[in-house]
């Protein structure tokens, strides 16, 4: 085990996969010589050369399409879309091409493509650099979507994504960029895509979150514990396909569900988790489900408004209290 920052864990995962498999190739704006706009690809251009770590033009659509073609033709490309908001420029290639090719070819043409992108929430970068669009991607059959809340997962899930036969979108959190955590040394340590993890066990309510919101849920759970409310914190890790088993199992244990997300509410992953609870999990649900999300508005930039906009510890605490019937 080493202590690494979130971005260093990403960097180490990329380096290991580049070393392991000559078919792996990185593509993106500034990922080569500059080492990434935020440092995630530092040193890789020097070690693996300009053919395997490629600086690209600002052409998200062609870049993603090129990666789709390269994946069909036997490479394992890893494309960086610098900020999550810019996937808007690559949706045709992601959704109409990458996600459908395995299906349309009856599995004869898998698309082992990885798309890395960063959600800027918390940077003060404003309405076109801080959106949480994970709900769009999780709505697309054929895509897989993962989002790590720890350095260890950031590395392990990225490696799993690169080795996966399907297109995987790996979302990273700017808000976690410099958070440190233990990361296993074993280069074969991966985490299975599709499996959630319980970060804290509890009996009174299930808190479901992913990415940077997990930390706030854990803090909220501590506050709640002091009040005698024992919250379970489930980190989804994979947003599609969803680990419905683990979510339902936890719900059956606690009977209460609070989903916390930095994205806006309508048609979101949070809505989907609650949909699951209200259909298959209905018998277990003993109180109204709660969705703690950003308000239905674009992301404002200044710190004061950002704080008001993204769900904070207090908001989570309040929702769990409501859920267990202990409003204060």
């Amino acid at each position, binding site marked *: 085990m080493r202590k690494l920052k979130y971005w260093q864990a990403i960097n180490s995962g990329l380096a290991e996969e580049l070393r392991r498999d000559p078919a792996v*190739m990185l593509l993106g704006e500034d990922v080569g010589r500059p080492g990434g706009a935020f440092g995630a690809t530092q040193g890789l251009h020097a070690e693996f050369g300009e*053919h395997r770590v*490629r600086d*690209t*033009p600002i*052409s998200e*659509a*062609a*870049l*993603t*399409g*090129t*990666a*789709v*073609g*390269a*994946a*069909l*033709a*036997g*490479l394992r*490309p890893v494309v960086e879309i610098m900020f999550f908001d810019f996937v808007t420029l690559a949706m*045709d*290639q992601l959704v*109409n*091409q990458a996600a*459908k*090719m*395995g*299906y*349309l*070819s*009856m*599995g*004869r*043409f*898998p698309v*082992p493509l990885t798309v890395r992108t960063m959600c800027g929430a918390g940077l003060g970068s404003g309405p076109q650099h801080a959106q949480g669009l994970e709900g769009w991607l999780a709505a697309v*059959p*054929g895509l*897989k979507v993962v989002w790590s809340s720890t350095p260890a997962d950031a590395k392990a899930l990225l490696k799993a994504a690169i080795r*996966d*036969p*399907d297109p995987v979108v790996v979302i990273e959190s700017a808000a976690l960029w410099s958070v440190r955590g233990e990361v296993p040394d074993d280069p074969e340590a991966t985490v299975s895509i599709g499996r959630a993890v319980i970060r804290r066990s509890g009996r009174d309510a299930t808190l479901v979150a992913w990415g940077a919101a997990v930390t706030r849920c854990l803090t909220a759970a501590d506050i709640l514990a002091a009040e005698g409310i024992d919250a379970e914190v489930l980190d989804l890790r994979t947003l599609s*396909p969803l680990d419905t088993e683990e979510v339902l199992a936890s719900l059956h244990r606690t009977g209460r569900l609070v989903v916390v997300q930095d994205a806006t509410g309508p048609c979101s992953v949070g809505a989907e988790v609650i949909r699951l609870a209200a259909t298959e999990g209905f018998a277990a649900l003993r109180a109204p489900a709660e969705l703690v999300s950003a308000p239905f508005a674009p992301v404002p930039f200044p710190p004061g408004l950002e704080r008001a906009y993204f769900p904070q510890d207090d908001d989570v605490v309040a929702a769990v209290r409501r859920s267990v019937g202990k409003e204060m």
Partner: protein
Amino acid sequence: MTRTSSHPRPAPADDLGVDLYRTMARIRHFETAASRLLASGELPGFLHLSIGQEAVAAGVCRALTDDDYLTTTHRGHGHCIAKGARIDLMLAELFGRAPGYCGGRSGSMHLADPGLGILGANAIVAAGVPIAVGGGLAAATRGRGQVAVAFFGDGAVAEGVVHESLNLAALWRLPVLFVCEDNQYAEMTPTETHLNNRDITAYASAHQVPAETVDGNDALAVFSAAERMVRRARDGDGPSFLHCRTYRWHGHFEGDAQNYREAAEVEAWRGRDPLRVLRLRMADESVPTAIDAECEREIALAVEWARAQPSPDPGSVTAHVYQPDGASCGS
């Protein structure tokens, strides 16, 4: 061709002209059969046929081997046939039958064949273009002299991703051949209404990609330009752009009322039938005649076979959304 010899294609039994003619005749008979089957209600969905444009598919693909890649469009039957796709499996797909290229679930617009480097037809205009660049990137990485061809229409040239793709291929000197099949229309809109510069090669030249316009109804002319461009690509000299002026005889899709063009215009272009253009240059009239008869038989048999195939099991509708671990492809 310098390097092609290292991955030889089943040697043509006969000379270049005959080979090109056979490819065009197979396309013509395939498309004609498909048109009839749709009109008679046997085929579901949309069909976009390439009758009149056969010389582009035949000429370009004659310069390729099975090891090369291509991507094509909603009007892609001809390119697939010319690249060696199996006519029976294509027809089964058009019928929506289980043994079809895509298990019968995709129809005309998504044909793909890993073994032949067919990286897919595509119902999204221009989407195949960057995918071919990706084929070129894999080829360049592998260094075995493969090339990738992107077929697309005049209409596609207005999509930004084509320009992005030209820039990428040029920057990285990728072995990509951009083939613009300019049939004068994007659906019902004539090219001068959708492209300000009617000289389509200019868009490639802007990226310093060598570009040439050829008579897209002359298979020999197409082949000779394509061959040169493919050689450049195999030699590591980067992408080229081939602009082929041609015309589609049928509507944009089968059933299109075609109010947007004059019958006389269609007639004039029918007079320049790519099959006849080539036939007139052939020494022995009996050869193409025999080929036509052969193709007609081949297609008739394939239609009969395809029609008799079972439909996919409705329960299979969710199969292959995700692939089993370890699945992979590519060569």
